[in-house]
């Protein structure tokens, strides 16, 4: 495979202005498919979540899933779109073996939602408005597995196998208007936009929103134009970029590739590109032979959907708080600084902290545990923090044990590891492992006196204001108490004894 020339991102930005566009496909988490009553379930045995409709058998007819319509309207509303008073389905015709009827039932002239926008917050707090052209309903295709040749790629495969379990899964395709003016923030904006869409559909409860499972898939359009020119350049469409990181990288790469093509004086080819995570590059996708002419026409087997204003308002009333408003409210409620809050958001533990607070922890305690302990462990385990297995109740209990002076912070982290290892509840682990702090100050004061006496020079430094020296004394006390003492309490007592402000 030949590799394309690229320009450095900085040089590309000096010369060109990127214009972006996104088509994000969201798989709805309805119980059944868009047009058939077969289950919408991920990962089962091939060709078992299908009936005659999903296989495009002769004689079958589609019937629309009401819940899928409601989910689509909710998505439209959350994207600040207008909801069509009346809309229809259309057939988009192309032959491909994963498409059982050789047409996709989609929407064409009149999508269910149109003319919306999303305000995207970038990492420095800048708000960038992305305008939404439309959100339309359609059905997913089956899954092709390419056999023979190398690594499951379509190129060089000897044959392919088709599983139609995914065929007919409801999709909402969200299409942006051309996004201008992002400049060098384009890759970051791309990632933030897709993240925002994912957050919205997850909050709405209409999608499982797992990118790694393809619940949210992004096609990214990129074109460049010289600075100052109004007319758009020729775009490429990079298909199925399926992680947030990949979205950022793919946009960045395409900007660099386009810049090199334009610099060479050649025109950019309007085509689909495939993203390769391994090499972090795109390659040219073969143009589908029918791509120039989908022969759309109104689906004669389905009747129009009329969304009465009452129905739309009923659905609007069920919408959760918009993500931006929710963030603002949570930050104010929790009293986090901008930086603290942004770290929480970037670490992906905002929901978890909210749940932990709801379970009874303070905002400070919740942040301390999630940001201080759990995020790091999740990173090591290569999973989302929320997926690590820590329940809000666990944190509340751990914290109570510390506050009651039953264990110290060091022990608490040990107990957390025990919980993650499946040894039981924090209380059980404290019991089993024989962990308990020495809580009576009497023995502690004795040990502190002994430690201060043993290191008079250190005691002097602390008195002189060198607080960082206190560790040596605390260490001595902990050693004497075989780690059973509450280090924070020891520190307090030392400072008290020496008459120093902490």
């Amino acid at each position: 495979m030949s590799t394309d020339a690229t320009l450095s991102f900085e040089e590309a930005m000096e010369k060109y202005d990127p214009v972006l566009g996104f088509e994000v496909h969201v798989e709805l988490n309805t119980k059944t498919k868009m047009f058939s009553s077969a289950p919408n379930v991920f990962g089962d045995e091939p060709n078992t979540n299908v009936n005659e409709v999903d296989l495009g058998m002769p004689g079958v007819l589609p019937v629309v899933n009401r819940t899928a319509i409601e989910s689509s309207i909710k998505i439209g509303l959350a994207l600040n779109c207008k909801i069509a008073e009346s809309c229809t389905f259309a057939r988009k015709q192309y032959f491909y073996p994963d498409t059982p009827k050789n047409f996709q039932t989609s929407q064409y002239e009149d999508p269910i939602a149109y003319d919306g926008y999303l305000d995207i917050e970038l990492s420095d707090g800048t708000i960038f408005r992305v305008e939404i052209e439309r959100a339309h309903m359609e059905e997913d295709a089956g899954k092709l597995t390419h056999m023979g040749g190398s690594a499951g790629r379509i190129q060089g495969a000897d044959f392919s196998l088709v599983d139609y379990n995914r065929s007919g899964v409801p999709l909402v395709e969200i299409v942006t208007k051309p996004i201008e003016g992002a400049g060098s923030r384009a890759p970051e904006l791309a990632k933030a936009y897709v993240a925002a869409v994912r957050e919205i559909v997850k909050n709405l409860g209409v999608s499982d929103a797992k990118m790694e499972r393809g619940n949210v898939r992004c096609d990214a359009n990129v074109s460049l134009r010289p600075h100052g020119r109004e007319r758009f350049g020729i775009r490429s469409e990079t298909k199925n970029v399926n992680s947030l990181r990949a979205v950022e990288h793919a946009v960045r790469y395409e900007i660099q590739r386009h810049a090199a093509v334009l610099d060479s004086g050649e025109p950019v080819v309007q085509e689909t590109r495939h993203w390769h995570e391994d090499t972090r590059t795109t390659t040219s996708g073969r143009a589908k032979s029918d791509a120039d002419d989908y022969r759309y026409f109104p689906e004669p087997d389905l009747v129009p959907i009329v969304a009465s204003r009452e129905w739309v308002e009923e659905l609007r009333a069920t919408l959760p708080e918009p993500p931006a408003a929710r963030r603002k409210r949570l930050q104010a409620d929790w009293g986090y600084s901008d930086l603290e809050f942004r770290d929480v958001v970037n670490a992906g533990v905002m929901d978890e902290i909210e749940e932990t607070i709801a379970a009874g922890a303070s905002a400070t305690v919740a942040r301390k545990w999630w940001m201080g302990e759990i995020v790091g462990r999740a990173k090591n385990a290569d999973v989302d923090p929320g997926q690590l297995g820590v329940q809000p109740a666990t944190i509340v209990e751990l914290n109570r044990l510390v506050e009651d002076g039953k264990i110290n912070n060091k022990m608490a982290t040990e107990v957390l590891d025990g919980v993650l290892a499946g040894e039981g509840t924090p209380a059980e682990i404290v019991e089993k492992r024989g962990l308990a702090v020495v809580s009576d100050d009497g023995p502690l004061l004795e040990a502190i006196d002994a430690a201060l006496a043993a290191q008079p020079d250190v005691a002097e430094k602390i008195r002189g204001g060198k607080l960082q020296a206190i560790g040596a004394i605390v260490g001595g006390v902990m050693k004497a108490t075989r780690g059973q003492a509450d280090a924070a309490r020891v520190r307090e007592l030392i400072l008290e004894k020496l008459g120093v402000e902490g």
Partner: protein
Amino acid sequence: MTDTNELIRLSAAQLAEKLRAGEVTSVEVTQAFLDRIAAVDGGERGVNAFLHVNTEEALAVAAEVDAIRAAGGAAAEELNELAGVPIAVKDLIVTIGQPTTAGSKILEGWHSPYDATVVKRLRAAKMPILGKTNLDEFAMGSSTEHSAYGPTRNPWDLDRIPGGSGGGSAAAVAAFEAPLALGTDTGGSIRQPGAVTGTVGVKPTYGSVSRYGAIAMASSLDQIGPVSRTVLDSALLHHVIGGHDPFDSTSLPDPLDDLVAAARVGNVEGLRVGIIKELHGEGFQAGVENRFNDSLELLKEAGAEIVEVSCPNFQYALGAYYLIMPSEASSNLAKFDGVRYGLRVLPEDGPMTIERVMGATRAAGFGDEVKRRIILGTYALSAGYYDAYYGSAQKVRTLVQRDFDAAFTVADVLISPTAPTTAFKLGEKLNDPLAMYLNDIATIPANLAGVPGLTLPGGLADEDGLPVGIQLLAPARQDARLYRVGAVLESLLEAKWGGPLLAQAPELAPSIETQEAK
């Protein structure tokens, strides 16, 4: 016991009556029709109405009905009126346990894993299914010559066409191989075969009978309907198969009218019958025109008022139909690609990609008429032509509907000859698609507008002694009106003839090779 030769000539209503009275068993009835099929359907000069005969299952269902009747009690009481009366099913309608070919090589040997809704309803009514009937490939044609399995012959003259696409269902009923059959009508495929075989056929209001399981040709035009020898029999069958189906989004939610009562009551006193100016006269065979006038005369005598209506936009109906039908068909037939079911043909040379396999499969699996319509439809939908062709044709639909609306303000039913000619000779129009298409000139407007239409035999044309069909049309959802008027006209005509028209059909001689073959 009734003589089998008499038995097969009874109407479905009469058979049902005898079954209820215990004068005959369903096994005897079913066997009589199976014997008739064996006698006249096969061989070189056979009718060839059936593509598949469902002997064992039909007899098993018949035996089941007989057992229920013999046992008596609630189960016997609850039996459908047509329980035990056998039926033939057009091979465009999918059935578990029997092959479904759509008359095409591309589906040869395919067995559906599901039943069409109408088939489920036949099974629920415990009607033995005799088998699957021949048709133009994917219902595309007006002569049944476009079947991949050889043409069906007209029982009135074995050298002539039985009409199409449902020539198999019409011929089976006309040849006394079945008392009833199911057809599908997209542009006249129930009514035109009915006309040329001297049988009754009804295209119900669009949405009145579920399309689920009828292999689609043109989704916005297709309707399943009854084929029979009497108007009452069609009403009885319509009652079994009709009514709302949640599997068909275009199925009407309305409850079915009492169609059977309408056929039994029959009354035309004070009825306004509209002659459609554009659907008779020029282009219509003289003998057809004469028999049409006979029917008008009889209706007038019976107290109906005859009025003339004009439907000026009908002149565009054929053109609109030949844009909408192939457009939808080109899309509906895309699924036949050699991937999931049916034929797969590998290209003879060159790269063996799935694209090429699809292309080779469809080239080998589809006949000329199907290819013609797919290409025409692909053209009509393609970029740059959509508005002029498909879009304009949909506007013509609106105009045709408006013509009907206007006509139904001055007439309760409309009347016309069903087909412009009697049955033509096999092969006569095979190489002239346009001439073939003109056969549907009088039936197509009803499909475009979704209104119901019924054909019944109107007598024999003077010049060739072949059956002529009379078409009645009613406003959408007024199917009952067709049965009421149709039953009256039928009884008036039969009184004039001294019996059913089919009694005048020539006797079909069982051929020796037929009997050896079966």
